[in-house]
């Protein structure tokens, strides 16, 4: 027999001004199973909580209903109080007399009647509550970081420095990501390589970090605290243990005309290569697509010249499996190749380049050693046009969103150009300048005021080539859309930032949700900016949306903090409000028929198949089982189950049924 305590809160006058709290308590006392019912000015106050605790102890209550404010506010408070008094916290329920009653209705009998109904509902529900224990999940304190750009580097170092093991997976031959390609960084104009390279080296040397370069996530199983990640180590054709990074191989490789990805096609590389001189690890890999040996079976020059015999042809990809407790996704972004803008002639005219290509031209380590020279003939361009929003804010051909970083990097490009080419003319076509950030607006103003970049408000309609010049046709909308035609030597398109290739596939592998542009989705856009909807998987950097370096690093440290927080305990506790499949005593009495409709419906892959065997070890049936580590307690499966074999703790069929009948005051 239940012994329920009902505690009606006045909330000062918030409730009692419209609800007759005393009457509510009196009526509640009349309900079957209610042992004690009283009202008090502030239930959540210390004295209020003491009243509840004492009632539990004195009357031996089996359940508590607090009629006060929204459970979204104080449910944890009262459950904690009950636990302190020795009552299972999940035997405590709240009913909302404030937000759902006193604040939204006039003072009259009906309002008090409603309050009584609300209390009755929860009393009937609480009678059917069962003591629940928090779910404890062990945590393996090792993190997997996917992506070795600045975001992944920062997150890995933060986690590793907190004393935890980190597996860093990078799909390219070297870590460093897009940041390693940049020349200078806004708004301080410090050299990108100079600030990044020490971090890359730190990663390579950190005792807590295992770096898998040239590797990709193959598959992921498990759940928070207990993921099992299989990683594909793509065959490098070079044994990293034997290789000393001397460079004899790539100096002798006969295939020298492969457009370098690192130099955005403006420079060339060999078939056996390291992406760039400061690469970490600084050991080459063979690009099988372009290697003579892999293409036609002849060559092997690298093998001959290698002093340590590190070249190993025809080795298959390998796989490693790592058990990790948390995952940080730091897969970054990609730059949209603006060839979908036929009117700008990218791909058709050699001197129409992307912003990232300009970075390589301006970079001291780039193909021109930092001199601005146009790709077609190597001449120093005297007139350069920069076109902002080449792809961004263009639902028709590009992407509808603002790529956020382009205004700043375009200002930087104009500035770098003016610094490097004295007497050069730069024109920036823009629509709006988005320079929200510390010292950002000042930076753009400097480009205009001090370095003399000519900013024209308007979008370019078309570019065509004539006599070695690029004719750029635009308007100045601030002069009543007056036509502006510039004969430029080079055009730089501020191409949009988009989700990295393979983002969708990766998200599906990991069950992380993503937005229509394939950027990974945060659990909450404001309050959970580095979490995903899948517990234990965190996000940082430009895989969420285009981000500049400061924001990327901030989110990386944020994600790392979440991981470190998770690793601060040996076990994870979770609310036990999860689904369960009925299994009284032994397996075979489960009424589950194993149709697995619930499995299709579950958004969390929390439903597993469990084989029920007889004594002879033969499988007699397969039934569903809920993995409490994965289940988030939505209960969608419950309403699918035809035989009602699956139920959800805390919102069980019996409880909800009782609540509905009680609302309508049906005994």
């Amino acid at each position, binding site marked *: 027999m239940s012994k329920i305590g009902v505690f009606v809160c006045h909330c000062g006058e918030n409730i009692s001004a419209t609800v007759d709290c005393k009457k509510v308590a009196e009526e509640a006392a009349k309900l079957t199973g209610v042992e004690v019912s009283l009202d008090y000015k502030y239930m959540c106050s210390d004295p209020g909580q003491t009243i509840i605790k004492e009632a539990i102890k004195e009357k031996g209550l089996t359940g508590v209903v607090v009629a006060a404010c929204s459970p979204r506010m104080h449910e944890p408070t009262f459950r904690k109080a009950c636990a302190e008094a020795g009552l299972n916290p999940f035997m405590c329920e709240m009913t909302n007399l404030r937000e759902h009653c006193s604040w939204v209705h006039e003072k009259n009998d009906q309002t008090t009647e409603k309050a009584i109904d609300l209390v009755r509902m929860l009393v009937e529900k609480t009678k059917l509550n069962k003591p629940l224990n928090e779910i404890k999940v062990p945590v393996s304190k090792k993190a997997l970081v996917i992506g070795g750009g600045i975001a992944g580097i920062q997150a890995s170092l933060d986690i590793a420095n907190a004393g935890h093991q980190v597996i860093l997976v990078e799909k390219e031959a070297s870590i460093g990501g897009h940041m390693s390609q940049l020349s200078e960084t806004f708004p301080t104009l410090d050299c990108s390589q100079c600030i990044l390279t020490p971090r890359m080296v730190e990663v390579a040397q950190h005792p807590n970090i295992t770096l898998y370069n040239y590797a990709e996530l193959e598959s992921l199983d498990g759940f928070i605290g207990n993921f099992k990640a299989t990683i594909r180590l793509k065959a490098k054709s070079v044994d990293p243990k034997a290789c000393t990074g001397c460079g004899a191989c790539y100096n002798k490789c006969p295939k020298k005309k492969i457009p370098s990805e690192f130099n955005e096609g403006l420079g060339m590389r060999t078939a056996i290569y390291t992406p760039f001189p400061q690469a970490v690890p600084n050991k080459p890999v063979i690009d099988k697509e372009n290697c003579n040996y892999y293409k036609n079976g002849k060559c092997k020059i690298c093998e001959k010249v290698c002093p340590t015999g590190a070249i190993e042809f025809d080795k298959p990809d390998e796989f490693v499996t790592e058990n990790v407790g948390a995952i940080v996704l730091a897969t970054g972004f990609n730059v949209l190749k603006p060839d979908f803008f036929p009117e700008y002639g990218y791909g058709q005219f050699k001197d129409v380049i992307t912003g990232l290509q300009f970075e390589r031209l301006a970079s001291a380590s780039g193909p021109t050693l930092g001199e601005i020279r146009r790709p077609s003939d190597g001449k120093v361009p005297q007139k350069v046009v920069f076109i902002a929003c080449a792809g961004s804010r263009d639902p028709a051909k590009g992407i509808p969103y603002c790529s956020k970083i382009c205004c700043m990097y375009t200002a930087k490009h104009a500035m770098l150009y003016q610094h490097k080419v004295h007497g050069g003319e730069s024109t920036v076509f823009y629509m709006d300048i988005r320079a929200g950030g510390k010292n950002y607006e000042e930076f753009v103003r400097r480009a205009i005021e001090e370095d003399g970049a000519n900013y024209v408000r308007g*979008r370019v309609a078309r570019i065509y080539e004539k006599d070695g010049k690029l004719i750029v046709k635009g*308007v100045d909308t601030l002069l009543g*859309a007056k036509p502006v035609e510039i004969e430029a030597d080079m055009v730089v398109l501020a191409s949009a930032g988009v989700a990295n290739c393979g983002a969708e596939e990766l998200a599906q592998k990991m069950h992380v949700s993503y937005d229509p542009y394939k950027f990974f989705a945060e659990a909450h856009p404001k309050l959970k900016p580095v979490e995903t909807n899948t517990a234990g998987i965190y996000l940082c950097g430009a895989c969420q949306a285009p981000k500049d370096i400061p924001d990327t690093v901030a989110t990386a440290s944020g994600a790392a903090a979440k991981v470190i927080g998770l690793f601060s305990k040996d076990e994870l506790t979770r609310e036990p409000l999860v689904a369960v499949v009925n299994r009284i005593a032994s397996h075979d009495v489960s009424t589950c028929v194993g149709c697995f409709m619930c499995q299709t419906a579950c958004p969390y892959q929390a439903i597993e198949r469990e084989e029920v065997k007889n004594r002879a070890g033969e499988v007699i049936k397969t039934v569903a089982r809920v993995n409490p580590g994965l289940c988030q307690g939505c209960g969608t499966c419950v309403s699918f189950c035809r035989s009602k074999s699956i139920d959800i703790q805390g919102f069980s069929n019996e409880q909800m049924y009782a609540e509905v009948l009680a609302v309508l005051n049906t005994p």
Partner: protein
Amino acid sequence: MEKQGYISEIKEHTGINVNRCYQCGKCSAGCAVTDEMDYPPSMVMRMLQTNDDENYKSVLQSESIWLCITCQNCVTRCPMQIDIPRLMDYMREQSLQKKMVSKKAKNIVSFHKSFLDPIRFTGRSYEIGLVAGYKMRTFNLLQDLNVAPSMFMKGKLPILPERIEGRKQIKEIFDKTKKEDK
């Protein structure tokens, strides 16, 4: 709530929401006749966005709407795919209906009307009739005197109009779709 006014009328008749334009100016930059126009296309868009009747009047009375040659460069490049040519068509219809046609555009309007007249009666366009009608409307009697004889010579101007069998049907098409008077 959507604001009342011509913006919603435009939307209703053409499906175009002028507020989608964010004034990048790419239409004006690519427009073949920008520098002839009193208001370049992006300006027309801006004026329409104000939902201000004075501005609407200025658009309807402008020469711009008649100068648009429907070359479609604007809409193919517009990041928001705003169908400006369709909008211009609508403005022209409105301008005619509201009798606000710019004096400067008289030639163009006369040409369009003269072009349609022979079709109405014969089913096909007829250049001599067209030119004659056009000249009657514009009093540009001397125009093209230099070209016409050589056109005859080269067999480019048939002297008699072509007539089709379904003339009655064509006339009905004109009657049934008629909106405004000449």
